[in-house]
Structure formats: C-alpha cells, structure tokens
C-alpha cells in the first residue's frame, strides 16, 4: 500500500516512535512572535535551558503592532512592553528577530513563505493556529500552545500523535469572481467548524492544482477553521517556481538536490485516507458568512438558514449567533449595508490579493459611509505594492494602504471594529468580539470585500464584473 504525502513527511521527521507514547517529531523551523512566546522564554530561564537551535528559530512582531506610523514608538503600553520583551528575549537567546523597522518584518505566516524559509517537505510550528498556512508548500505545519513553544525551543522537537488523514478534492472550473477564499469558506460550510478535528487534510484535485501559491496558502490557512490539525498540498512546478530564488531558498547544488526530493512528495495512487470528500468547483458561489464561526457560511445569493432546520441541541447557540449578528432566519444579505471593510490578515494580505483588489477598484471609489483598511501582510508586500503603484490606486479609491501586521483580524492593536458595526473582512474568523467587543464580522474574499466597500453593502461581485473583466 502506498503512502500519503503527510506520512512521507512525518516519517522523515520522526526522531523516536515508541508504543504508548506520542512520536518525537523533529521541527525544521520554529516561528515565534510576541504574544505566545514570553511565557515560553520565561520557562527556559526557569529550567536553565538555552534555545537549542536558535538558527532554526525565526521571530517577528506582528500581532500587536500599529499599522500607521510604525516608525514611532508603540503608543499602547502593554503592546509596546510585549514587543520589547520579544526583542530582549531574542537578543538573550540568540534568535534572529525581524522586528518593527526590519525589511523582513510582517505577519509570521506571510514572511516564512516569501523569504523562502517555508519549503516543501519541511516541518514548521508556531504558537499561532494559522501555521497551517505553510502546508501550502507540501509541508507539515502545526499551530501550537505556549508550553509547546517552550518545548520546541528547548528540544527542536514536538511530541505529537500522528493525526488521521483526510483528502479533500475539488475539481472543475471556478465561476468568474470566485477564488481560493470562496473555495475554503465553501468547504468549511460543508464540513462545519469541527469537521476536520483530528485530521491532517490534503487538498487535491484540478481546481486546487490550478491555484497560485497565494491561493493555496489561503486554503491551507483556514484548515484550522474546520478544526484540522494541518492542511497541505503536494508540491508541483507552481511551488518550485515560487520558492526559487527567494532569500533563504537553497541555491546551486543544494537547490537541485532539494528539487529532486520535493518531486517525490505526493500521495501515492494507492495511498489510503481515513476520509475522502469531493466537491465541484462549479457549485461554489462567492461566499460570505452570516454567523459567529467560520462554518456558518453561504453563497452570497443564498439566505440565512432557518433556526428550526438546525440540530435541536444546537438551536439555542444558533439563535444566539444570529442575535449577535443582528440577523434573522431566512434573511438575504444581498444589499445589507456595511460599515467597515478590512483587507488583510494571514489569509488574504499577500501581493496577489492586493493586486486583485487594486485591479477591481481602479476607477471606482468606496461608498462614503464605509471605512476601508488595507493592511499588507509584510513590509515586502507593502514595498512591492508601492513599487507597482497599487498604493496610488488604493488612495484614489479611498482605500489607504497601511503598514503590515495582524491588525483588525483580532484587534490586538488600535485597529478595532466598533460595537454593533458590520465589517466585511478577508480575515479567517468571525467569532464574537474577534475584531473588537461586539463587532460583527462577515468573512469574504478580497473581491467580495472590495465590492462591499465600493457599493457600501453586501454585493454579488459577479454582477459588478464587466464582461471579460479578468479579475478573479
């Protein structure tokens, strides 16, 4: 019997496998940031241990950082303290830090791939659930808790039980205006927010294969939103082309050797999965969410489900969700006025996302009552956007380009959505209060978010795209 892609990578990283114990899994690169690392560094100090492999540890400041006037000291005292702590900890333990002002600074899941640190066949962890993003390269990438951050710092290993394997295939041609974000919101709406729990999910099929690396990262990023341990996509020419020439990518002979290995990374034809799901790309509309978890999504033209149709034990929670969102049974969201649009987060803040939005908003302008935040994923994305003149397009449209960070995805910095306001967001979570206490989040693709900004309401992007317009 053949092997799955996941098992090939896992087996290549097992240090020790002992009956009755989780495997000791070797970690190639550990990404850290200011929020989930301070207690871990503290733990090392208490144990009198160093960071075992500081050169395999990469740090950035992203969760707390302001997205305006980043050259000034951080105003909010606790945020500043946490970022300062990261700086001190990295200096003390010999870890390279891409902090504020560094040309490589940015959201941890954006900088790993763009610097060529994330590669096929590797193992990556970070104290952040969206570490699943890196699986887009054909890698195993887990979000971990702070005790495990300490564990990886101390040992360069992670104690883990092998998850079950699921394959999700998407085949067929996408409709105009439908992209990677719509695919993953659609999948999660079908699997529910818990449907992937206990699984490593491999995405396959010709629709997935046709996606760019940015699109694949969007898909894998949200694997955690169905509860999956990680998501991954077998590497191919698209992957290899993307990694080639990046700052820390292998060079010369090392490159040739690496590519030869990467070409062995696929699930064998006779590999067995514990679960297989198949979807048709043609069935996927532009998606939006109406509730308070990412599984509560619908095609933009569909209606909010009726409470009576929900599982009896879940009806109360369901009704609470709709009440929180200010929505009711069977409501159509098309035409619903919105207040904020956030384009950013580790799901959709890459250069391709910004290019797509810029192409659509060129010659258009945001609605007067809408506030728009465009937050690039990294300093490099910001600079690339400026070099391509996207900042000018955004400015003319009333979409100022801000500075990189996690921003309004979770509102740890100043970028919070006020109570009761609706935000169409390209981020990954619509949990209660996620973007600010009592804020209301509607998850969508960058194009659907841009359409909402321009019209001031929830809009079917397909209606705005002119005949032959290439966007999407």
């Amino acid at each position: 019997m053949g092997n799955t892609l996941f098992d090939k990578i896992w087996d290549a990283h097992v240090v020790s496998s002992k009956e009755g114990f989780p495997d000791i899994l070797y970690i190639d690169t550990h990404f850290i940031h200011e929020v989930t690392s301070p207690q871990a560094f503290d733990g090392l100090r208490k144990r009198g241990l160093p960071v075992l492999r500081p050169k395999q540890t990469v740090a950035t400041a992203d969760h707390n950082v302001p997205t305006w006037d980043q050259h000034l000291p951080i105003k909010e005292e606790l945020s500043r303290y946490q970022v300062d702590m990261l700086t001190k900890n990295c200096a003390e333990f010999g870890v390279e830090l891409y902090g504020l002002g560094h040309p490589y600074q940015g959201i941890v899941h954006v900088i790993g791939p763009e610097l060529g640190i994330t590669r096929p066949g590797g193992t990556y962890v970070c104290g952040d659930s969206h570490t699943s993003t890196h699986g887009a390269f054909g890698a195993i990438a887990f979000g971990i808790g702070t005790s495990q951050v300490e564990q990886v710092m101390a040992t360069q290993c992670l104690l883990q039980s092998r998850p079950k394997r699921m394959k999700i295939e998407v085949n067929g041609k996408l409709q105009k205006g439908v992209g990677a974000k719509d695919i993953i919101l659609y999948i999660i709406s079908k699997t529910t927010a818990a449907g992937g729990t206990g699984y490593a999910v491999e995405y396959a099929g010709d629709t997935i294969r046709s996606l760019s690396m940015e699109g694949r990262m969007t898909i894998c990023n949200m694997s955690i939103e169905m509860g999956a341990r990680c998501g991954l996509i077998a590497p191919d020419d698209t992957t290899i082309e993307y990694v080639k020439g990046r700052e820390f990518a292998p060079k010369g002979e090392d490159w040739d050797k690496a590519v030869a290995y990467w070409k062995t990374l696929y699930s064998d034809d006779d590999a067995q999965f514990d679960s297989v799901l198949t979807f048709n790309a043609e069935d996927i509309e532009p998606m939006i969410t109406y509730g308070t978890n990412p599984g509560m999504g619908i095609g933009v033209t569909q209606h909010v489900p009726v409470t009576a149709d929900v599982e009896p034990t879940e009806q109360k929670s369901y009704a609470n969700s709709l009440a929180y969102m200010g929505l009711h049974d069977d409501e159509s969201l098309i035409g619903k006025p919105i207040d904020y649009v956030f384009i950013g987060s580790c799901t959709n803040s890459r250069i391709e996302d910004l290019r797509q939005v810029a192409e659509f908003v060129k010659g258009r302008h945001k609605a007067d009552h809408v506030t728009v935040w465009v937050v690039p994923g990294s300093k490099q994305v910001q600079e690339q956007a400026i070099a391509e003149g996207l900042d000018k397009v955004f400015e003319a449209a009333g979409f100022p380009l801000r500075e990189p960070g996690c921003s309004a995805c979770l509102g740890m910095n100043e970028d919070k959505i006020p109570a009761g306001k609706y935000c169409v967001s390209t981020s990954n979570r619509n949990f209660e209060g996620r973007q600010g206490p009592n804020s209301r989040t509607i998850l969508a693709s960058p194009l659907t978010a841009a359409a909402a900004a321009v019209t001031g309401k929830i809009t079917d992007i397909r209606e705005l795209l002119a005949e032959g317009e290439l966007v999407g």
Partner: protein
Amino acid sequence: MSTKIFKHIQSTAVPLPIENIDTDQIIPARFLKATTRDGFGNNLFRDWRFDENDHPKQDFVLNNPTYSGKVLVAGKNFGCGSSREHAAWALSDYGFDAVVSSFFADIFKGNALNNGLLPVQVSDEFLAKIFDELYSDKDAQIEIDLEQQVIRISNTGDEEAFEINAYKKACLINGYDDIDYILSNKALVEEFEAKR
C-alpha cells in the same frame, strides 16, 4: 519541571450549554498582552461575563451564585479557534480543574493537558444527562477519576468511561511534562540531526 499532580476530582459543576465555544470567547485577544501565565482568570469569558462598563451581566452563568465548582460542563467543540494557551490558563486560574464536553478542539485539548486542566470528552447522551442533572439539582456533584478514566454523576450513579492518551495520563498523575520526556531522549535528537 513538574506540573500539577492530578488524580481525582469531586465537585459541583457549572453548566455552559453552548456549542463551538472558541478561545476568543474564553479569553479575548485584547487580554493576551501579559507576559506571565498568571491573572487570566479575571478575564475568563470576559465579554459574556461583563458589559462594556465592566458590570457583571446577570444572565451569564459565572455571575449566577447558584452554580460554582471546579468542573465546567460545556457544549460540543469546546476550545476551537486560536491556539492561545491563555485560554487554558484562564480556566485554571479561575478555578476549574476539568472541562467536560462532547467534543474538544485539538490544540485546546493539548494545551489543557499541558497545564493540569483535564478535558473530559463524553458522549452527547451523557453530556445531556449532566446538563439535566445540574438543572434539576444545582448541588449535583460530578466525580472524575483519572486513574480509572471514569466520570460519574454522584446523585444518580450514572457513569461513563472516557479516553485519554496513556502517556498524557501518566504525565498528569506523576506530574512530569513533555520537555522532561524529550530531554531524556536528547541523544536520539542529536543522532537524528547528524544523519540529515
């Protein structure tokens, strides 16, 4: 470094019958700015417990003096969302020793086990029985025997076995942790690195 040693709990319980409770509800992101593990209990379920003026919301169960105890009983898919371990710290710091649900998110479950907070996964039917019992008798006691892997409703004698990873169970009972275990295998790690 040893962690909390853990074998048996008998306590009253707090019912929270909501599905998909994510870690942003358990501890909102804006309270993640501390650099130590302490004090998160004050902000446990912050936005469900307090209004915008920091006044307790009377209809939330933690503000209801009827219910208290070391066991939180919650709807399925508890702990989904962010990997923040602060959620487990907040529950422990508030005074919970165990969370009972019919389903746990993976990362939360791991975080809880690493912090001496026992996630006890029961069937949907048994969960419903616990809720029923708590609503008919607020003083109903829940017993959790980690060694036997059994959860019991004291009043009725209803009980159910629960699963726990054998290694994690040994860690909790003996008070040792993953770092101790991997460090005891350090030679294997170095051997692995040398072969690559």
